[in-house]
């Protein structure tokens, strides 16, 4: 059955026809246009070959038109309101599921299709070839994804009114703590990592958002712990990038200059908003990913994608650990979070892991999406205090094979993220909760014992304390550390004061430190400061014994140099010129000293 109604012309003529599968080629009378303006659609269809268009058009008619214009009009009519209901009938139950998912959640074709795995949808580019009968049959669903990637927003809106929203994959909280190490939650702690890096000479910066006392407190208490060193390095690089982009840091000064403002929650909120609206694409922070030309094309809009992720995050219950994979399922189905849209684009996934997007297909795209989400959680949202993340050990990497079609299980160190939980601070920053009270360390919530172990008895280990202990002690388990002399020495050599460390540890335990621990701190302090660089010395090799003796013993030169044994004579750099002049008078030449 075919029915048609005339439509007033407006710019371009459209024919909207509700078609039965065997209906003849639709012709006039033209149907009235509705308010849907699919101007982009003809363009998208115009790029298709006639064969491709006919392949789909055969769903609607046994005798599809032969010229492109008519074909496009026929197909367009199926997405206009009068023909849409019939078209949806032809899409079948599974097809309608795909369309409903795309209309109500993530508009990507591949995401929607992944939700109905058994449905043979096909794709314009891959399955239009009708000569291969065994391949996927043409589906009307393709019409709604004219660019093979995503459903146009206006079409999504239209379908959303007709198709009920499918049930979302539920967000399930874990029953208890996830395995591994817990990280983040204290925004200042992670900011401290950046400042510590500056102190260690890895970064020169000017801060304009922190006061001297707070800066000192942070730099004295925070550093890159060794077990997470690689991970933290990645984290502070990301955070530095954000802080620099948002004007919190300037990498121009040769020394630390501090501003006058104290950091507070509202400053953090400003930073969070700056991050939310940042044009930077976090995919570029993933060292394991490289585009063919250092680009990821085509890539969805980073701000929109980030906002979509934050939207999904805002639905998580505050304080409950969420399994990462479960969250991905939920977020992917409900929000437009896909970073890479095209499974044909070539993105190398890690030099060490082999493979590329073209080879890996869907699995590779999912791997990239997951790596991006993990990076955002661990390197941006955890440092900003929005979430805490749980890090497990990385699974062992599969054997490397060139042209390996298996999805890699590791793209970056952030792949260790297995779970996360939204903090009260995060809920407030996301606009779904009230401003929380400040987290304080409970004195006496820790035990420091004679064997050097430091144990936290609280439910959470505050980040600042964790980072401090990671620096000076070996971590034994989730809540226990053992103070280590070598780490203490390194920390003190790095600028920590032994008495400050003692005071912090004493404050943590709420009691005097055991004798063994006190002595360990003293000993580390002594060893860290026993040797100081006093001055530099230039060493001259004097091959002539007479020259050596004269330089070391002559009244004019002996005060300027010293015997370094053998033929070597040492000269402080400040005395070199004087020694050269005096030596010249004695008839010896000292060549110019070039510092490489």
């Amino acid at each position: 059955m075919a029915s048609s109604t005339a439509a007033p012309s407006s710019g371009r003529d459209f024919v909207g026809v509700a078609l039965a599968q065997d209906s003849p080629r639709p012709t006039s009378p033209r149907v009235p246009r509705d308010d849907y303006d699919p101007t982009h659609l003809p363009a998208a269809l115009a790029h298709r070959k006639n064969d491709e268009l006919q392949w789909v058009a055969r769903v609607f008619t046994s005798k599809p038109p032969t010229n492109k214009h008519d074909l496009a009009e026929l197909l367009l009519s199926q997405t206009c309101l009068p023909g849409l209901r019939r078209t949806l009938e032809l899409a079948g139950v599974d097809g309608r599921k795909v369309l409903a998912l795309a209309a109500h959640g993530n508009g990507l074709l591949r995401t929607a299709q992944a939700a109905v795995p058994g449905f043979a949808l096909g794709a314009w580019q891959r399955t239009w070839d009708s000569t291969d009968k065994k391949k996927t049959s043409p589906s009307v669903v393709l019409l709604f994804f004219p660019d093979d990637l995503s459903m146009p927003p206006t079409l999504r809106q239209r379908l959303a009114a007709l198709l009920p929203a499918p049930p979302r994959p539920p967000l399930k909280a874990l029953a208890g703590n996830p395995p591994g190490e817990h990280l983040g939650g204290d925004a200042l702690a992670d900011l401290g990592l950046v400042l510590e890096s500056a102190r260690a000479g890895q970064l020169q910066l000017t801060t304009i958002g922190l006061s001297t006392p707070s800066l000192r407190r942070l730099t004295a208490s925070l550093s890159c712990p060794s077990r997470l060193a690689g991970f933290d390095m990645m984290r502070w690089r990301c955070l530095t990038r954000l802080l620099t982009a948002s004007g919190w840091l300037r990498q121009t000064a040769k020394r630390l200059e501090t501003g006058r403002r104290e950091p507070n929650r509202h400053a953090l909120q400003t930073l969070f908003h700056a991050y939310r609206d940042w044009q930077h694409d976090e995919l570029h922070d993933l060292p394991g990913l490289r585009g063919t030309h250092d680009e990821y094309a085509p890539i969805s809009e980073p701000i929109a994608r980030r906002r979509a992720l934050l939207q999904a995050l805002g639905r998580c219950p505050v304080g409950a650990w969420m399994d990462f994979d479960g969250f991905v399922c939920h977020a992917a189905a409900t929000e437009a979070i896909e970073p890479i849209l095209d499974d044909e684009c070539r993105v190398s996934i890690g030099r060490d892991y082999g493979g590329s997007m073209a080879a890996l297909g869907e699995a590779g795209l999912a791997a990239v999406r997951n790596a991006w989400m993990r990076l955002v959680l661990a390197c941006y949202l955890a440092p900003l205090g929005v979430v805490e993340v749980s890090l497990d050990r990385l699974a062992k990497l599969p054997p490397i094979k060139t042209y390996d079609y298996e999805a890699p299980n590791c793209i970056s160190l952030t792949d260790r993220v297995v779970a996360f939980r939204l903090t009260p601070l995060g809920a407030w920053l996301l606009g779904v909760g009230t401003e929380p009270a400040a987290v304080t360390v409970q004195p006496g919530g820790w035990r420091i014992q004679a064997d050097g172990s430091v144990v936290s008895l609280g439910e959470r280990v505050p980040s600042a304390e964790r980072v401090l202990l990671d620096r000076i002690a070996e971590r034994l388990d989730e809540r226990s550390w053992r103070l280590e002399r070598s780490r203490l020495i390194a920390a003190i050599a790095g600028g920590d004061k032994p008495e400050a460390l003692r005071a912090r540890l004493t404050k943590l335990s709420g009691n005097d430190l055991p004798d063994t621990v006190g002595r360990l701190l003293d000993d580390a302090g002594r060893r860290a400061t026993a040797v100081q660089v006093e001055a530099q010395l230039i060493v001259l090799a004097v091959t002539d014994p007479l020259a050596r003796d004269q330089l070391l013993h002559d009244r004019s030169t002996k005060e300027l140099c010293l015997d370094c044994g053998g033929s070597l004579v040492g000269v402080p750099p400040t005395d070199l010129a004087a020694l050269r002049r005096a030596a010249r008078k004695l008839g010896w030449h000292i060549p110019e000293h070039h510092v490489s």
Partner: protein
Amino acid sequence: MSADAPLIVQSDRTVLVEVDSPRFHEVRPLLARFAELVKTPEHVHTYRLTPLSLWNARSGGLSAETILEVLQGFAKFPLPAIMPDWIRETAGRYGRLALRRAPGSDLLLVAADAGLADELAGHDRLRMVLGQRLSSTSFLVPVDLRGRLKVALVEAGHPVEDVAGYTPGEPLTITLRKRTAAGIPFALRDYQHAAVEAFHAGGADSGGSGVLVLPCGSGKTIIGIGAMAAIGASTLILATSVTAARQWIAELLDKTELTAEQIGEYDGSHKEVRQVTVATYQVLTWRDRSAGGMPHLELFNRRDWGLVLYDEVHLLPAPVFQATAGIQARRRLGLTATLVREDGQERNVFALIGPKKTDVPWKALEATGWIASARCSEVRLPLPPELRIPYLTAERAQQHRLAAENPAKLTAVRALLARHAGEPVLIIGLYVDQVLATSTALGIPHLVGSTAQRQRERLFADFRAGRIHALAVSKVANSSVDLPDASVAIQISGSFGSRQEEAQRLGRILRPKPGANQAWFYSLVSADTVEQDFALHRQMFLCEQGYEYTLLDGVPA
């Protein structure tokens, strides 16, 4: 969950127990049934859940659900999500395999289901010890492979419940005296009685093999004798040295009605095999170079032993392990102060001797006065200037010796002897030369490896009687020498970083003492030398047991 709950269960399977919690004493005995005690420092004790500990618990009749109830009931915070499943899965492995007696002389290994039996049949190592497959779920096992099979199954992660029973052994009535031969009232203490019962299990097949972990000075020998009396059969006792063996014989004669004719000594000088025979590990592992092999291992089969008792089981040498694999039909009891083995053979102890039956923390006995309270101090002494350069330029091994033989230690020992004048003092050293030099310089007797047995006994007797107050000993006195009156130990040198040695040496002075029940342990180390580093490692074990170390720069006035 409550704020005063004492347990924090972590996802790495460790369990932290807060000592200050009001429910600490309630949870500790429950936890000890299914978790291994890792360390007991002063504030927070650490236990670890391992497959072995869970299987031990299952062998004791504890179910996974009971274990979870304890953990959840006493946990301060919710359990990690992975724990319940892991506990159920791991504990559930125990009891799925049973070793039973088959008609005839062989044994029958019965699996709970055919899938498990298939898995065992496909396992490389197990195939070698499994006999004919009798049905979809059972295998015939040659009786002589019982021990090897148990070890292989534990290594494969499938512990077997050994209910094949024991040979009763040659019956022997062993009666404990009410008063010792010296006329002192004698009875097992409560914890000793409990330990014997944990091992014996009323004579059931579920008992009869296992390890009792008790601190030095707690009367492990007495517990061993109690176990012998409970079983009432001929017994082979394996001790670490001749001195220790004779100590056993003396205790048996003192505390039981056994006569000297019923007790044999089997060591380098005696080869008596009697109803109760005390042998040394050394003689068992003596290798006959001409004929090859270890002929004395035959001792295990020379008599129909009803019980084989391993003293200081943490020192059990590998050949004795192998021999033990062949006597799985006999009851076996291991005694030790620590299951820490420097060679990491705890799994073999579990499989071949048996599961841990009881573990009493040192500090618990100290609190009840059954062992002395000890104060530990490390005295750091600088090297004399003239030794500093030779020390720095010496090879690493030589450095340790130079530091250990620091002459400043002699002055410090003098000062400590003066400080503890009148108290029995043991001076313990690693190097014989140093022990002899100290003995000579201070004019005190010494006991080293070359000291004749008769001389040793005379020295011990004099020391016990208080005729001598100080005795310099080498490492021969590390274990199994009962010196009840020593209340001060001065360690002048130790075996590099051996934690076990430090514990044993402290154990020499922990036996209860009249009066304040107080003992002192001094470890003299050369400051800023490798000895200080080694000392740190050694003292760690004691700190983990809850002993606080005081670090002193020189002997205080």
